[in-house]
């Protein structure tokens, strides 16, 4: 059972997407929505099953829970190989938890070519699942592309004004950097072939070469830039605000909630774990850029009028902490970065749900036209306040755990950087509270805002669940911290044996 569970995690959303497309061709748009919802529920059930059996079996050598391996292109040493460790498991859950409400709420109202929409959305989800498990570098690259390509279509067809420009930018940045990663993968494979005489794309087999190859720093840079663009790291962040703002609501949630984390995951798995020495060399640069990102993007967030752009910039600012933690070279910083990925996924995802609802009801994203919404929608405003508080790092909520641990890891490396990063906490309170001020406080600006109505029950339920998860992560983060320790690639032989 466990053997096939891992590939099934990729196949289920993929096949479900195709089914949704077929259903959507003939039937009502509602039918496509239902079938895509069922697919995701199945995926969650499978994931729960995997989690339970992983815990029952306990972690194997080096912290790996489960393996799957099957030949794909034997001539080139390419396998369909999945391995599951605690980090993958946490990230897979994040993907499931974000994707479900994403379909439940925001994809519900898509009427135009709904089947295709759900097909593309689920293909992205499948790609993300693959990215979080693949340990064959070729397969990883395949999923990396599978995750991105459908997104271009989603934004291009269903996006808002300015989508063509945004997609072009998104495409150039991610594909350009993806190319660098492909070159780095091929380089690593060739160097390995010269050293050992074997052509293989296997993560574990390559980890030895990555450790000792003289050109390891160059190869590492190829991976680093691809993930840094995806995260994004300043100065490669320019694609993000445009893309987030132009995306349909469901895609914004997915992009901010999970896709950014594939960058963080990649940095951990394929930069820090694969090239420990080479990445230690660029750590000061990466951390500096992380701090610059925290401050610079928080400053930009304050100045925005478009609520989605505000959240987008705040998101980049928070992701700077991930860069700091991952490259701090300390265990506490790394765990903080992972906690931050989960918490940020939940809080930013929820903020995009809120922005989506506001846009749907008010017909605008311009905060200078909002104001005084609290009396019109009190519960919704209270929830917005909750997520604003989470986003400014209130202790007791998940984001604080991540940021505190990251700062603690950073402190052991550089005091100056920690001082600047802590200044980011002040700025995060400025933009979060400015958003609350402009949207919910003050007198009503326009009378047309009157027919707002109460948010639907699913909205309140989804936001409530996200709030509870953030609270749980904030007051009792230990299970996530324990689980999410990334497993090392340098346990080749045992992992290899188990996979066979």
């Amino acid at each position: 059972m466990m053997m096939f569970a891992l590939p099934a995690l990729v196949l289920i959303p993929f096949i479900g997407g195709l089914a949704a497309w077929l259903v959507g061709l003939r039937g009502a748009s509602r039918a496509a929505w239902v079938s895509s919802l069922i697919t995701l529920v199945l995926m969650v059930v499978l994931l729960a099953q995997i989690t339970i059996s992983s815990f029952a079996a306990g972690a194997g050598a080096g912290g790996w829970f489960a393996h799957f391996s099957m030949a794909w292109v034997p001539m080139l040493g390419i396998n369909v190989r999945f391995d599951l460790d605690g980090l993958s498991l946490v990230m897979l859950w994040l993907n499931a938890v974000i994707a479900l409400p994403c379909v439940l709420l925001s994809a519900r109202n898509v009427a135009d070519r709904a089947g295709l929409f759900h097909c593309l959305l689920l293909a992205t989800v499948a790609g993300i699942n693959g990215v979080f498990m693949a340990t064959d570098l070729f397969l990883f690259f395949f999923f990396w592309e599978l995750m991105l390509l459908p997104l271009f279509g989603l934004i291009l067809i269903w996006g808002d004004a300015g989508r063509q420009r945004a997609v072009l930018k998104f495409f150039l940045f991610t594909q350009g950097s993806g190319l660098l990663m492909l070159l780095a993968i091929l380089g690593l494979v060739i160097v390995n072939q010269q050293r050992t005489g074997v052509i293989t794309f296997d993560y574990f087999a390559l980890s030895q070469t990555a450790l000792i190859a003289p050109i390891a720093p160059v190869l590492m840079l190829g991976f680093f830039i691809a993930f840094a663009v995806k995260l994004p790291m300043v100065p490669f962040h320019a694609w993000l605000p445009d893309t987030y703002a132009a995306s349909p609501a469901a895609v914004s949630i997915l992009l901010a909630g999970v896709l950014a984390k594939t960058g963080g995951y990649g940095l951990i798995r394929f930069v820090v774990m694969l090239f420990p020495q080479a990445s230690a060399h660029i750590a000061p640069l990466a951390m500096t850029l992380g701090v610059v990102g925290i401050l610079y993007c928080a400053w930009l967030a304050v100045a925005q009028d478009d609520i989605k752009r505000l959240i987008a910039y705040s998101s980049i600012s928070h992701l700077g902490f991930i860069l700091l933690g991952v490259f701090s070279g300390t265990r506490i910083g790394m765990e903080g970065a992972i906690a931050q990925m989960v918490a940020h996924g939940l809080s930013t995802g929820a903020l995009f749900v809120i922005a989506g609802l506001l846009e749907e009801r008010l017909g605008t994203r311009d905060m200078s036209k909002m104001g005084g919404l609290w009396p019109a929608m009190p519960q919704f405003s209270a929830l917005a306040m909750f997520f604003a508080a989470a986003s400014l790092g209130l202790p007791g909520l998940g984001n604080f755990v991540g940021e505190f641990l990251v700062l603690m890891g950073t402190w052991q490396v550089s005091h100056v950087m920690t001082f600047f990063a802590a200044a980011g906490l002040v700025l995060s309170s400025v933009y979060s509270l400015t958003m609350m001020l402009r949207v919910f406080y003050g007198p009503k600006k326009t009378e047309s805002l009157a027919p707002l109505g109460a948010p639907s029950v699913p909205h309140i339920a989804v936001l409530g669940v996200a709030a509870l998860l953030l609270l749980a992560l904030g007051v009792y983060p230990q299970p996530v911290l324990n689980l999410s320790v990334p497993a090392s690639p340098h346990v080749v032989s045992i992992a290899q044996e188990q996979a066979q």
Partner: protein
Amino acid sequence: MPIPATVWGVSLVASLLPLVIFCPLAVSIILMLTGGKLPARATTLLVGAGMGLCALFAVVSAYSFLSGPNSLGSLHVVLWNWMNVGSFNAQIALTLDRLSLVMMLVVSCVGFLILVYACAYMYDDEDIARFFTYMTLFVASMLLLVLASDLLGVFIGWEGVGLCSYLLIGFWYGEQANAIAARKAFVVTRVGDALFLLGMLLMATAVGSLDIPTLLAVGPHAAPRTLTLGMFLLLGGAMAKSAQVPLQTWLPDAMAGPTPVSALIHAATMVTAGVYLLARLHGLFVMTPLAMLACAIVGFVTILLAAGSALVQTDIKRILAYSTMSQLGYMYLALGCGAWHAAMFHLVTHAFFKALLFMAAGSIILRVHHEQDIFKMGGLRKDMPWVFAAFLAGSAALAGLPLITAGYFSKELILGSAYDLSPIFWAGALFGAFLTSIYIFRCVFIVFWGTHRTHAHGKSGLAMALPMAILSVLAIGGGWMEMPDAIANVHIFSNLLAPVLGALPEEHNTSLLILGSLVPIAGVTIAWTLWRPKGEAPVAAESPAIATLRADWGFDTLYDWVFVRPFMVLGRLNRRDFIDRFYDLVAALTQGSGHAVAKLQSGQVRRYAGWIAAGTVAALCLAV
């Protein structure tokens, strides 16, 4: 010193202690989940019951702790492990010792009285449920701050009270100004929170733990430079929370919230959190004389600046806000002198009389149609004799009228220790006391004497009168639990805290005491000569200097020009992100050059021939 919870009394305290925090928290959650659907009567009953239980549990656990076998030590209740990564461990745990016991009693009992008062004050507000959601959440956070045994746990409460303060200042969200004041309060205190956080990181790295007993035991062995930096950072955090110069600008604006909020948060409890934190860590603080000196100077400057501002305010709540800053300055001065008893004693008496003053001010405001300008009041002595009596009791205690008020004894204790540090500090603090009695009695004489300038209506109900009566008694008599030997040998308060804070230092000569007693009387006399009823209605003095003084000595304007405006204006200019523009430029250049090159492909043979010729010439030139 943790002890096994075998004795009945100990296990009683151990099980009651979490409940003290849980009661207000539960009320808050219930009110939050019912979302304002409860009728006002049910809401007030729920709040009264919850807070009553909280205060009752606090009193019972305090009593059984003090009568128990471990009354000199501390009781440690571990609730759960919060974060455990590598060697770093943070617990959610509560500690009851004599210091946290005093604070717990102040927060729960004064909090109970203020919430009872607030039930009457806010009864007709349609958002009463939301108000009490925030208020009870505040009390729970404040109690966590007081009782947490881990510095990181203290920080949960620390930020929790900050958030509740933000929510309550902006409670009447219809006014943009309230929301702006709320944001300002949060952001300015957040600067301090960031410093606090950095201080914790430093301590955690140097000591390996943030558990307060461990910190106090191991911390003094840390390198002196590390310790000094750490204490400076923590002091910065405490100062922002307590509105000390130069991070004081948020407190006067915070008066935008409903008056019970000002009484509870911005007078009796939250703003004193910094004082409590430093007293809690006094074992480390005493190792860093530089940080202590800085603390004393900050307190000293704040006393005088805030008293000067209070002297010229026209808004009754702003007078009280500046007086709060000034009184907190006394506590910081005391901490800087190492007089922990004096700081804590003044904290307690200040909680009594300042909460009382705000309640009385709130009753006045409610009955004169939400007028807050003292120059538009007048002659209210006859309209509301009981409120007048309460306000007078509070003012007398604030001014420190000798022997008959609580403020006198606590202020004398601080003045005495300031004299030990340096006579300059003593003289300044004494001058501050002089200004205090002038500005508060200026307020009393203008509001309660003279001719009517407004019409008072209604009556203050029992729920408002009773808390005021109790606090009046405490504001008058609360000081008798600690008196100098020259008057009477009573040291209940310092004996209570002695196991934690050490013995009280020696007494000072009586001449200081006599001077300290005469100054407030002189102040009241001057206030009477200046603002006694003189036939025509008094008017506020106006001049550019007074305007500056009234606007907090220009700090606000300064910060506005130095920090806020550059930040906002430059941010506005760079709203479209110059890095993004750079990529646009690259894109435009690529596109432009593409177009330019495309034009060459015109399809005309003679043009191609021309280019070929030109190229040949160029190549020949290069070759030659």
